[in-house]
């Protein structure tokens, strides 16, 4: 699925990606790392990536910060102003899943509540390399490394009834995350 999406992204964005950096109540940690990516040391302009001031010029929105209630309509308007096709990167733990503030008052809890986030770049803040990795992942330059991990201490026989019940309960946990 991710590979297919990368191919689609490569087709949709054959040339330079222009980024629009949207701060939705971040602590400036992620914003500093985003600017760090543009410095000569990391030099993301190698890939033709450029930071632009207006969402109307941009292909990609770099969203940083857990979307606070005052910024929610503004983030939505900025997203609508970007011409399609468009990508949204949730930079940092706050934009990816809400961070420490996922259920705080006055915070809507992550970028996914406001706009469809295509790629998550977790980290608090993410290293500049991690941001470059995320963008390179979208461009199809690198393979995706992370995958869900399932570990078990003991595999012991349980009868089918209990096992079914266990699976139902486990799905409850997954529902808890979505809230």
């Amino acid at each position, binding site marked *: 699925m991710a590979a297919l999406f990368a191919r689609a992204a490569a087709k949709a964005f054959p040339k330079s990606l222009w980024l629009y950096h949207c701060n939705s109540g971040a602590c400036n940690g992620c914003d500093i790392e985003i600017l760090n990516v543009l410095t000569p040391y990391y030099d993301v302009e190698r890939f033709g990536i450029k930071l632009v001031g207006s969402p109307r010029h941009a292909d990609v929105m770099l969203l940083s910060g857990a979307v606070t209630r005052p910024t929610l309509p503004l983030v939505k308007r900025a997203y609508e102003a970007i011409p399609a096709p468009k990508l949204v990167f949730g930079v940092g733990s706050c934009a990816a899943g809400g961070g420490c503030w996922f259920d705080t008052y006055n915070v809507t809890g992550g970028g996914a509540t406001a706009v469809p986030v295509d790629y*998550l770049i*977790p980290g608090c803040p993410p*290293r500049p390399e991690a941001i470059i990795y995320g963008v390179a992942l979208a461009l199809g330059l690198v393979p995706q490394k992370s995958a869900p991990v399932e*570990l078990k201490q003991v595999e012991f026989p349980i009868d089918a009834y209990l096992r079914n019940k266990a699976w139902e309960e486990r799905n*409850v946990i997954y529902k808890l995350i979505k809230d």
Partner: protein
Amino acid sequence: MWLTSKIKQIVLALSPGTVTLKYPFVKKPVPRGFRGQPVWDHTKCIGCGGCANHCPARTILLRDLCQEIRVLLYDGSRCTYCGRCADLCPEKAIVMSPEFELAAGRREDVSQTVELFMLTCNRCGRCFDMEIKNAIDKLDLRGYRYDSLEARTVLRRTTDRMAPEALAETEAYRRPEKIGGL
């Protein structure tokens, strides 16, 4: 004169060389003590739930499926990589790995699930009750495992090291009462 200054400028501009990191193609090792993704060792975990209690982002969830199975779920999307879970773990089952290339298309890609086998009490047949115990007593949970029973006999109590007279004084100590009683 302007020509010499231009030449000087060019020499100055060329002397630092290239500083740019060729990142996605050539990787640079992370600095020492860098905290990346936490990694669970399911062979060491005793299921005490300390990490779930102390996670600032509450991204570690614990759920008892039945009497013997406890599931630990780590959702990496909102993890802040503070390392508190690794600091706190009594069995050092959590290690902050140097892995930082965690960008993913889905939230589930950065999640980890650990299914733990909780031993039941021989007498009552139930799991150890965590709720009515304080934080220090919760660490005694390891006494209910086969593997650390021997290690537990070696553990010293604080009172072992105290002088007998100091101990006696401590035991005789009474809280000062309010004048006139309650």
